């Protein structure tokens, strides 16, 4: 038996190679992608319910954010000039491949929506594009969770059931926050409610994720990831409270609450990023859960592999 918390390793060195992704690029990509996708959903709703002063900034945000997120993704490549190689295959086993195609479909729709709104040209096509972008946008916000969870990185992979909900909530609160900043309070009602609902979903899903992922939850409470997550929670609670109570009457309160929600969403993405990196750096998060899994399997009735007779207790 391995006593709890004790494990063996090769001189404490990590089992996994460290993610090559840079924090600003990839966490930024997660944040921007979420902001874009949820803004498109908000824009579609505003378009359909006659709130042009909300629809326009949401569409422009979607286009700007998705452009920035694509730029961040390309910047992160070791060979940026080869980014188009992602479009030479369609590969369902690769979330990055599926994501590339999703962005290839979503980006032009978001662009068309924003450009037709600003120029007033082709209003019908613009409306159809905005609705399409709204639907695809919901997938843009959650596919990035699959992207990072489909790795061997413990604090990403073990959270794969809740991570898409964390990202959906975080994206909705960010897009709501932006809507509160950019639209006059009379038309920003849906943005306020999306922000509050999003913040609630995010806080709940983070809590649920941390409870269900075992040892891999630890990095979310420690070090840089822990600090970022605590900041995200505080900003989220403050921003949501402001959105619910004050933002309808005061434009200043709306702008402050919106900014807090945007900052909270960014903090969440950086927290998730850094928690994953921390879990890849320490062999504990790889070895201990796997060891426990093996031992649980050995105890199962009918286990075909007998427990090892030669368990050694000396430290490696």
């Amino acid at each position: 038996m391995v006593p709890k918390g004790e494990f063996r390793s090769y001189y404490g060195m990590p089992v996994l190679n460290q993610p090559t992704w840079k924090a600003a690029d990839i966490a930024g990509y997660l944040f921007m992608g979420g902001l874009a996708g949820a803004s498109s959903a908000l824009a579609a709703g505003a378009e359909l319910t006659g709130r042009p002063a909300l629809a326009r900034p949401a569409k422009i945000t979607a286009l700007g954010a998705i452009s920035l997120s694509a730029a961040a993704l390309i910047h992160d490549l070791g060979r940026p000039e080869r980014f188009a190689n992602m479009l030479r295959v369609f590969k369902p086993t690769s979330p990055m491949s599926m994501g590339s195609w999703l962005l290839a479909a979503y980006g032009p729709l978001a662009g068309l929506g924003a450009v037709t709104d600003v120029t007033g040209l082709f209003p019908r096509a613009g409306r159809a594009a905005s609705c399409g972008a709204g639907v695809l946008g919901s997938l843009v916000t959650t596919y990035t969770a699959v992207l990072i969870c489909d790795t061997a990185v413990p604090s990403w992979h073990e959270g794969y059931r809740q991570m898409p909900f964390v990202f959906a909530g975080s994206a909705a609160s960010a897009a709501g926050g932006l809507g509160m900043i950019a639209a006059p309070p009379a038309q920003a009602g849906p943005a306020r409610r999306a922000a509050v609902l999003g913040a609630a979903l995010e806080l709940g899903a983070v809590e649920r994720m941390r409870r269900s992922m075992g040892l891999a939850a630890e990095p979310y409470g420690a070090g840089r990831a822990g600090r970022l997550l605590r900041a995200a929670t505080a900003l989220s609670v403050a921003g949501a409270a402001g959105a619910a109570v004050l933002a309808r009457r005061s434009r200043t309160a709306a702008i402050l609450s919106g900014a807090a929600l945007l900052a909270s969403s960014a903090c969440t993405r950086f927290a998730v990023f850094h928690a994953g990196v921390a879990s890849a750096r320490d062999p504990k998060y790889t070895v201990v859960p796997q060891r426990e899994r093996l031992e649980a399997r050995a105890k199962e009735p009918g286990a075909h592999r007998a427990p090892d007779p030669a368990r050694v207790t000396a430290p490696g």
Partner: protein
Amino acid sequence: MTTAERPGPALQPEMGFFTDTSICIGCKACEVACKEWNRIPVDDMGLTGMSYDNTQGLGGSTWRHVAFVEQPLPGRTPGDGHGGHEHGHGHDEHGHGGHGSHGSGGHGGPGADLGHGGDGRVVAAGELGGGQTATTGDGGSRLRWLMASDVCKHCSRAGCLDVCPTGALFRTEFGSVVVQQDVCNGCGYCVSACPYGVIDQRPGDGRVFKCTLCYDRLGDGMEPACAKACPTRSIQFGPLEELRARARERVGELHRAGVGEARLYGEDTEDGVGGDHAFFLLLDEPEVYGLPPDPVVPTRDLPDMWRHAGLAALTLLAGVTAAFALGRGETRRAPRTAARRGAAQAVRRAARAGKRGMGR
């Protein structure tokens, strides 16, 4: 559902490595041969100070890595009065009879019968297969050296291959997994998807690199450079089925010789990666060598991941719909009642679905 299914043209058997670490002498001929044949640039030439291993691990410029473990002999725990806690400097006492008295007797573990010849000699690797063993002056063994040449496992279900978005990684006719360097765009996804920490980006180049199982040599009917260079035949190359049979035989042989801790790693086709094309005979737990004890290909859970992402996307749409539906009367152009009712129903349905999804 994966692209990792083996192609296996009828006439070409799957090939692989069987690395028998019990006869590895840690000479690193494999590391050197690999570097030379594949023209891999030097990497950090520093000294680690932790052991004789200054290579440290596999990476973009290291495709074979010889691990070096120094540990007290199995069966001697720090608490049993045999100085297990002295590991790390125990070999300094080699030959100093004065220290030997508390090192003798009590050969409790299966490995404890190894390597003490009564004459205080160090048992050569391969003689019994228990790893290199250092002894004290009176012949009582105190610590052992484990050496193991690590390499890409060429997993039957390879995480790196599954997630590669450019198709740069592919499965060869030999069953191995190879990067096409002219296609890789350095996205780094494969690096995080490898459960063994093998493939890595080469700094300054941007692309990823790893063992190719000497794809170029195989095409010409030669064995990989490392296997060719290995002086003890610790690294064996051949058809996978043949290697597996040979490996099982070798474990039996070692068990009969009293080396109870010998075990195979990565040969089981039922494991989390569908079995490795490069598998090992180890003398201790995998994690002691820096290997994951129960690796699983991340894409095993991919269908479930997409299901959750889909439910979360629906939840988002439902939430946004609710944000609008709850605001009736807020604007002059409120949506018609029927549409509102329909929307509210959709919201409730999706919210329920979302809740269910998150719990699983």
